[in-house]
């Protein structure tokens, strides 16, 4: 079964960036969690997640975002979500998570 999620990271001078392309659901969640948590652990900078390629997420994926946010906050850092599509933003609003994340 082919992967439906492609993740890429970049470490810049002032931030770490993760680029998401595809779908985050129960099938791809572990892959996403492993990558996201790894970037959080391997960087001392704020995290920017580019969601321009993210076309599906559900509560499984949202829970991983929340977990990553907790980790970064403990370290005094932030997570910013960039280029979120409207259907994805809607999920953050419905669940109240738009108040926890910096969303551009």
């Amino acid at each position, binding site marked *: 079964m082919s992967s439906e999620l492609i993740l890429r990271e970049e470490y810049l001078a002032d931030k770490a960036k993760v680029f998401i392309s595809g779908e985050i659901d*129960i099938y791809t969640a572990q892959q996403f969690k492993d990558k996201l948590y790894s970037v959080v652990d391997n960087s001392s900078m704020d995290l920017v997640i580019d969601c321009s390629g993210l076309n599906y997420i559900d509560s499984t994926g949202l829970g991983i975002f929340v977990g990553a946010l907790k980790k970064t906050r403990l370290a005094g850092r932030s997570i910013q979500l960039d280029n979120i599509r409207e259907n994805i933003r809607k999920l953050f609003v419905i669940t109240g998570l738009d108040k926890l994340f910096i969303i551009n």
Partner: protein
Amino acid sequence: MVSPDRIALVLPYKADYVSVTRLTTSGIASRMGFDIETVEDIKVAVSEVCSRIINAAAGLDGSFEVLFDISKESLNITFVSSIEKIRCIFKDDEDGLGIAIINAFMDKVEFCPESDNYILSMTKTFEVISGDGL
């Protein structure tokens, strides 16, 4: 009274195939004439339930059913499993994200039905526009 048309999807308790439920849901909801945003909403709600069922099944063999009942007024989706422990699957939804999403996207949801015949049922109804509107 005309009986609804029924489309039945039978799936193994495997995460691999949750995306198939989304594709099926999109196809059915689009065919029924729901707008694109509503199609997305229904798709997410169905996927939420399927994910929860698969988690509850925890690698068991067998399969569950997703039944789509299509009428002119609404789409009713029922989830069926013969495994006894797969009941009230959202009762342990600690962060409440799944319930919030499903309640927001569907018009009527039976999270914990009294009947043993199904796990959960949810309905999306076509909006009725009164007056001279379309």
